[in-house]
């Protein structure tokens, strides 16, 4: 287990959020969903996963799969901060001269599998976890899913298979930000009680505050890996976390800000002032 340096984690998470905001212009990005999982990804890459730019080709590395692929600005922000990719590349967002677009792809070092269509990477992760087990590798496979993504039947189909085959080097992290694209989850397709659902499917269930590094560290340190059951961490998060002007706003799922707004939002993120937003709220993408 890596040591926990909370002030370093917090510094990185601010930088990652700045990257997310800077990618939310000139074509836009899924800003709200990216901000909700930023702390999770910062924690996982800095303090849990055994992978770094030097070990990204090692067979025994840990593998993270971003199944809710539209929050990829958070992942690329982490990659830029940790040296997987040159931070300057983030300025290529949506440019055809690079491969940085709205969903992850394996052209980017550190991305283990592409995504975009929801409900795919849990089954891909099961395959990778069983592969590691057969090879007697210590790799752990972490699959980050959205809460809205839990609407997909393929998630629950894969949950049955993972439990049946005792895939106990597999960890699902639910980014429980309470929203799916345009609505609160409980107003459209109620998900609660999520923990009971996973428990009933034969999973070990853990719950954590997805923005509290101490709590995340305690939770991920207490996972029971290798005990015959897959683990799930339900991480309570806030969509748009860190930027009050867009936090918890159903209409700030996908954002395409003006450059002025980005500057003001970065100021807001750093507690200097409140942004004045006039760009369209894009409900559907």
């Amino acid at each position, binding site marked *: 287990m890596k040591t926990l340096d909370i002030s370093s984690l917090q510094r990185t998470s601010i930088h990652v959020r700045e990257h997310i905001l800077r990618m939310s212009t000139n074509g836009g990005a899924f800003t709200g969903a990216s901000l909700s999982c930023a702390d999770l990804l910062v924690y996982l890459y800095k303090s849990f996963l055994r992978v770094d730019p030097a070990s990204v080709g090692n067979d025994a590395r840990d593998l993270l799969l971003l199944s809710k692929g539209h929050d990829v600005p958070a992942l690329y922000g982490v990659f830029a901060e940790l040296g997987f990719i040159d931070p300057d590349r983030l300025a290529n967002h949506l440019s055809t001269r690079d491969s940085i677009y709205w969903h992850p792809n394996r052209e980017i070092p550190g991305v283990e*599998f592409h995504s975009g269509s929801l409900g795919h990477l849990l*089954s*891909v992760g*099961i395959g*990778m976890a*069983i592969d590691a087990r057969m090879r007697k590798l210590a790799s752990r496979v972490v699959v980050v899913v959205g809460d809205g993504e839990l609407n997909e039947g393929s998630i629950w*189909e*894969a949950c049955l*298979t993972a439990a049946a085959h005792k895939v106990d080097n597999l960890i699902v992290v639910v980014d429980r930000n309470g929203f799916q694209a345009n609505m609160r989850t409980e107003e459209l397709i109620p998900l609660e009680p999520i923990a009971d659902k996973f428990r009933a499917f034969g999973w070990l269930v853990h719950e954590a505050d997805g923005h509290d590094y101490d709590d995340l560290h305690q939770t991920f340190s207490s996972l029971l890996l290798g005990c015959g059951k897959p683990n799930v961490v339900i991480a309570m998060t806030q969509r748009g976390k860190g930027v009050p002007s867009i936090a918890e706003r159903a209409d700030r799922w996908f954002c395409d800000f003006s450059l002025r707004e980005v500057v003001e939002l970065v100021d807001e993120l750093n507690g200097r002032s409140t942004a004045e937003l006039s760009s369209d709220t894009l409900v559907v993408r």
Partner: protein
Amino acid sequence: MNSYEQLLLRHCQESDELIVLTAENRGHLRNVPPLLGNRFIDVGIAEQTMIGMAAGMAVRGRTVVTHALAAFLTMRAFEFIRDDVGIPNASVLMVGMVPGLLSDGNGPTHQAIEDVAIMRGIPNIGVFCPMDIDEFVEGMDYLITDGKPYYVRYIGLPPVAAHTEPFLPGVAEVLHGNDISSPDVTILSYGFMCRIALSIIPLLESKNIRVRLVNMRTLKPIDEWRIRHELEDAQVVVTLEDHLLTGGLYSIVGEVLLRNHIPEHASVFPIALSSWFKPGRLQEVLAYEGLDPVALASRIETFFSTHIKESVVHE
């Protein structure tokens, strides 16, 4: 143990990287689970999960052979095949059981009769449609070693004719009439209907119609040279398939015609399914659908007598 089980066992012994998955479809694999140990995984009735798992294993270096009923494999799991196997060009073979007419009594839900169309539409994914167990096993032997993603129409029936060429993707084999020049009729076919075509030949020859029969083997890659050659050499080309008219061999021939600007005098007679077929015992289905040898010979003879090239030319 059947020859396919022996093939899987041999490849598993030769390479640590081969994994066999099934979505609870074990009929033709029943002897291998205890022999393959942890390299055989039954995921349950979960085709999407099976394909996603196979893709995850493949990008970690494995070659994965998956099995499910053809209809559920290609349609329930279609998006997983497209996204998770097609996009990364993952080393996954997808073996579809009871394709086409072979679903006999199951009814329309189980009829994979658009599988060739939808699978060949996915970039990177090939399509192999063998006509007997020997061709299936020989092709699988090649494809497992080759490691490219393929959809394969399974067939477990014994051979009804000797194969004339070793299996090679994109290379058709001439099963009959290689020794005649400019045949009256060339039948292009694949899979189960290629077997039926063999029974048509003596019926047509008894009417003095000279026939060539070509087993296309892989529909992607397609043997374009062979199709072009038959379009130019034969009076009439018949496409014969247990697949919907849309998107199968007839469509492929149409694409070849357009691509090569040679439709001028080509007469192509498509024999395919226009909709879901009447479910029942296979022999009765063939008769009901007009796909038994006698009915087919009569249909082909009628088409030939009205479409010979000379009559077109003189019009």
